C-alpha cells in the first residue's frame, strides 16, 4: 500500500515537475504531462461512460426490450451518424432534440432561478430595515447594492443620441450612472481575477506541498 501510494505520489511528483518546467518555456516535459492528463482523463471518461451510462442506460434497455430504450437507441444511432459526413444529416434530429431540450431547460431555469429571484432580491434589499435598530449598515449596503446593480445595468445600456457636433452621447444621468457602473464592473473583474489567482495559488500551494511531502517521504525512504 505504501509502495502504491509512493508510486502514485512519485508519478504525481514527476508530472508536477513536468508542468513546472513550463517556467523555462514550452518543453517536452510540459507537453508530456499535458498529454498524459488528457489521455488519462479521456480514458477514464470513456470507461466511465461505458460503464455507468452507455451500458446501463442504453444497452440494457434495448436488450430488455423496453420501448423507451428502443427510441433512445434510435436517437443514439442517428447521433452517431454525425461522425460520418455523408450521414451527418441523419444525426440532425437527435442533435436538434438535444439542443432544443437543453435550451428550453436552460431558459426556464434562468428565468425561474436567476431573473425573478435576483430581481426580487435587488428590490427587497430595503425590506425590513429599521434605521432605529442599528441597521444603518444594512441600509447602506442595500443602497450600495442598488446603486451598483443599477449603475452596472445602465452601463450596458449603450443607446445614445447624436449631438450637434455629430457625436453620439448618452443622457447625462445615464452617463453618470454608467460611469459608476463601469467602476463596479471593474471591481467585479478584479474580484474574479483575485478569485482565479486565489484558486491557482491554492493549487500551487497544494502542489508545492505535495512535492515537499513527496520529497520528505522520499528522504524518509532513503
Amino acid at each position, binding site marked *: 500500500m505504501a509502495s502504491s501510494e509512493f508510486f502514485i505520489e512519485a508519478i504525481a511528483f514527476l508530472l508536477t515537475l513536468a508542468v513546472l518546467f513550463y517556467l523555462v518555456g514550452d518543453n517536452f516535459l510540459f507537453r508530456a504531462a499535458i498529454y498524459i492528463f488528457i489521455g488519462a482523463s479521456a480514458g477514464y*471518461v470513456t470507461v466511465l461512460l461505458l460503464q455507468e451510462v452507455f451500458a446501463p442506460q442504453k444497452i440494457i434497455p434495448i436488450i430488455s426490450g423496453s420501448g423507451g430504450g428502443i427510441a433512445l437507441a434510435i436517437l443514439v444511432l442517428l447521433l452517431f451518424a454525425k461522425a460520418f459526413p455523408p450521414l451527418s444529416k441523419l444525426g440532425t434530429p437527435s442533435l436538434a432534440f438535444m439542443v432544443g431540450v437543453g435550451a428550453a431547460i436552460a431558459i426556464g431555469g434562468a428565468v425561474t432561478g436567476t431573473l425573478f429571484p435576483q430581481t426580487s432580491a435587488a428590490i427587497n434589499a430595503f425590506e425590513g430595515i429599521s434605521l432605529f435598530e442599528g441597521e444603518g449598515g444594512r441600509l447602506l449596503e442595500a443602497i450600495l447594492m442598488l446603486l451598483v446593480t443599477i449603475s452596472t445595468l445602465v452601463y450596458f445600456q449603450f443607446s445614445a443620441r447624436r449631438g450637434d457636433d455629430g457625436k453620439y452621447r448618452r443622457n447625462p444621468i445615464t452617463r453618470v450612472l454608467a460611469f459608476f457602473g463601469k467602476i463596479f464592473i471593474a471591481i467585479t473583474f478584479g474580484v474574479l481575477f483575485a478569485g482565479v489567482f486565489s484558486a491557482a495559488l491554492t493549487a500551487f*500551494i497544494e502542489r508545492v*506541498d505535495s512535492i515537499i511531502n513527496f520529497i520528505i517521504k522520499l528522504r524518509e525512504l532513503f
Partner: protein
Amino acid sequence: MENINCPVCGEENAAELENCQHCNQSLNQSTRELNGAGKLIDSGHTPTEKETSELEHTLPAWLKNARQGTGKEEKEPEEPSPPPPVEPEPESEPEAEKEDGAAPLDWLAGLDRDDEEDDEEAADWLVNLQGDLAPEKEDEIPAGIPASDEPITAGDAPRPSEEEEPDIKTGELPNWVSDLQGDEKEDDVDALPDLFAEEEEPSLADADDGEIPGWLSTLSKEKDSTIEPSIETSPVQPASPQERDAGSLDNDADEALPDWMGDLQASAETEISSVEDALPISNDDDLPDWLSGDDGAPVVPSVEEEKQEIVEETSLDGGDDLLDWMGDSDSTEEAKEDVVEPPINTGDLPDWLSDGEDSSPAAEEKPDALEETSLDSSDDLADWMSDPASTEEVKEEIEEAPINTGDLPDWLSDDEGSPPVVEEKQNVVEDAPIISSDEDLPDWMSTLESVDDSVTEDLAESDSSSSVSDDDPEWLSALPVDDFSAQGVENAVEAEASSQAFESSVESTAGVEDADIPDWLSKMGKPATGPLNEAKLETPPPAEEDSPDPDWLEDLPAVDKKEAEPMPSVAAFLPDDTIDDAEDDIFGIETPDWLSSLGPEDIDDKFSAAEAEEAEESTGGAELPSWVQAMRPVADVVADSSKTSDEQLVAESGPLAGLSGILPANPGLGPLNKPRAHSIKLQVGESQQSSAAILEDLLAKESQPSPFKAPKKTSSIPVLRWLIAALLFFGVVTSLLSKTEMVASPELTAPEVQKAFEVAKSIPVGGSALVIFDYEAAFSAEMKTVAAPLISQLMSRSEMLITLSTSPMGPALAENFLSETQSPYEFKAGVNYIDLGYLPGDVSAMLGFVTDPKVMVPKNIDEKSVWDTPPLQNITNFSDFSVILILTDDVEKGRNWVEQSTLALKDSNTPLLMAVSAQAEPMIYPYYDSGQVDGLISGLAGGATYERIKEKNGVEQEQDGLAREYWDSYSVGLFLAEILIAVGAMVNFLAALKSGQRSREEN
C-alpha cells in the same frame, strides 16, 4: 413673244432688241457701270467730299439724256399758254443756273450742300410756302368767291356749292393727264404730247380688245370690286361734281376713264366718305375743309399714301391754283354732303397739274385727301405737300436730308417723277439727297417734298402753311412748310422769297404746254398712279353709308375718342415684297438703281474715257453726296480704314464690318506672328507631381503583401517569470516548511460561511446529504480546503453522503476527496457514502434529477439500485435529502444547479449549501444574497474561516484543518502577488510616463 418696256420712254419693245425702237436707248440698263465708281462707306463713317462730276459717268444713260433734255428745255422759251396769275418765275432759278454755270448739267452738284446754302438758294416760291405768310393769305380771300372756290377751312362746315365748278383748264395739263379726265377731257387729248397720245389712244381704244398695257390692265382688274360703293359714299365733293362725275362714272366709266383710273377713283371715294362729320375743321378759312381734319393728328401713312396724296392734293384744288387734273378729283368725291368745294385756282397751276380729275381716283383712295382739302386751297399750298399723314420717320429723314429743289431740274420737281421714288420705297425716300434749292428741283423731286410735307402734324403748321398766297399752288405751298420747319427758319424774308419761288415754280409747271413736256416726263407721269393703285389695294373696305365719319378720321386726336370708331389705316410702309419688280415693267420705268447702288464697281467697261471726261467737265466741281458715299462697298472702307488703324479700328468682318472706332479684340494688336506652338504635354507643377507620386505609392502598396512581422523572440531564460516563480516558490515553500502560523487565521466573520456552519449544524442527524462534486481535477486541492471542514462536520453528524457528479471526473474526484480529507473516518464507498456516479445530460440531467432522482440515476455503477439502500429508501424527490451540498469551481454548473433546484427547494426545508472555488464566488454570491443558497463557502479563505468557526463553536476536528495548513502559504503568496502586481503596475506606469515624455520631446 415677250416684250419689255424701255426704261427711258416706256415703250414696249421686243425682248431681243438692245435699244429702244422709239428712243434708241439701251433697253438693258443696269447699274453695273456704277460698280467700282467709288468706294462705299458705312453708316457712321464720315463721308468725304466728292466731286459729283466724277460720278457723272456713272449715271445711267437715260438720266444723262434726261439731264441733257432738261438743259434744252430750260433754254427753250416756254410758251405762256395759260399764263397763270402768279408772279414771274423767281430769280433764284437763274441764279442757281448762274452758280452752276461752270457745270450746267451738274444738277446734282448741290445735293450735299449745307442748309445755309439751301436757304440761300431756295426758291422764293419754296420759301413762300412757310406758315408765316398765312395772314396775308387770309386777306387775299375774295369775298365773293363761289362756294366751290372758297377754301375749305378746318372747323368750318363747308357750305353748299351754288355754282358749278369751273371748268378745268385742261390745256394747262399735260396731255396724258388731261386724258385721264374722262369723257369731258377727251377733246383735249389732242393736246397731249405725241408720245403720250400714242400710248393713250390705243390703250383706250383697245381696252376691250385686251391690248391694254400691262400696268393698266393690272390696275383695271381691281376696279369692279370697289367702284360702286366708292361712288356712293364719297362725301367730300360738292354736289355738282358729284353728280357729274357719278354720271360719268356710271355711264362712261369704261369708255372715258382708264380702268386703273376709275378704280383709283372709286377707292378714294369710299375712303373719303366717312370723313365729313368727324373731321375737325380749323378756324382757318384758308385751309380747305378736307385738310382741316388733320389738326395735330398725324396719321401714319405709307409712302404710297403720300404719293397718292400728292396727286390728290394737286387735283383737289379746282381753282386757278390747282392743276386741272387735280381739280377733277373733287368730282370723284361725290358722296360728300354739305361740302363747300374748295377754290381751285387753276390759274396758278400748270395746266397739266390742274387736270387732275382723272387722276382723282388715286387721290380718292386716301382719306388723307380730305384732310388736305381742308387746308387752304387758296392756292398757296400744295395740298399733297402739307399732307400731315406722313410719318414721323419720314419727317426725320427729310429733316436730315432737306431737298434743295433749286438744284433740281424742273423735271425732277414734277410730281410725276414721284413714282420712281415710290417704287424704291422708303429707302429711296430715306436716302433722298439734299437739295439745296427748289429752283432746280425736278418735279419728281418735288414729290419728295410733298412727302416731306406729310410730316406736318398739327394744325398750327397747317395754319401757317395756309398763309401762302393764293397764287401758289397747294401742292407747292406745302412743300416748303416742312422743309422750312425742318430747317428751323421762320423769318419773313425767307418766306417772301419762298413765296416768289413758289409762284415761279407754279408758272414753270403750269405753263408747260403739252408739247413742251418731254417724252420722258410723260412716261414718268403715267406710272404715277401705279403705287396709288397698289395703295388702294391696301386700303380698307369703304365705310358704311350711315357712318358719317371715316374711320381713319376718328383716330385723329381732335376727334372724340368715345365716338370714334377704329379707323382702317393703311400701312405706313409697305413691305418689300408688296412692291415687286413687276411695277417697273408696268410703268415702263426702271428703278434708278444708281441711287442705291452707286459705286465704282458698277462702272461698265463700255463707258468710254471720252464720256468720262465729258462727265467730269459737266459735273466738275461737284462733290459726292454723303448718301452716295455711304453706299460704297465695305471692303474699300476697310481698306481705307486700315490706313488709320492707329487712330480708329475698323471692323473687317462680322456684324460690325465697316464700323470704325470699335474696341480691338486684342489690345495693342501687335504684329501678327505665327501662333506660338504649345506643347501638348500636361503641365504639372511640383506639388501636383508629388501628389501623383503619393497616389502611385499608395496604389503600389495595395498590391504588395504586407511583410510578416515576426514576433520578438523571447529570451531562452524568462528572467521575470523565473523571478516571480522563485518568489512564489520561496514564499510558499518557506511558509509550508515553517510549520508556524505566520499569519493568523481569518478572524473576520463571513455571514455566508457562518450561515453554512449553522445549516450544517442544524441538519438532522442520520440524514442523507447529497454532495455534488462538479469541479475539475485542477481545483481538487482548493475544493478540499473549502469543503473538507463542512463535509467533516456532516460526517460527524452521521449523515449518509450521497455523491453525484455531472462531470465524468466527478466520481473519481469525490472518492479522492473523501479519501484524503476524511481519512481519519475511513469512509468506505457503499458503506459510509453512496456514489451515484456520473449524471450525464448537463442541465437536462440536473432538471431531471431535481424532478425525479430515481429516474435519472436508476442504478449505480455496480448495477444495484442505490435507492433501495436504507438511507435512500425514503428519498423520492430532490427535497427529501437532508442537505444538498454543491462543490463546484464552475460558475455555470453552480448556477444551473441553483436555477434548476430553486423551484424544487422553494417550499422545502432542505438547505442548499455551496462550496465553490474562489473564482466562482463573485458569481455565486448573489444567489446566496437572494436566499436561493443557504450557505456559501468559497476559496481557501472560506474554508479557513469555516474551520475557525468550527473551532470557535467547539466542534471537534479529527485533524488540523487543511485550510489552516495552507493559510500561511496562501497569505504569503497573496502578499507576494500583491507586491509583484503593485511593483509591476508601478513599473509600467513609470514606463508609460517615460514613453510619454519621450514622445513629447520627439514632437
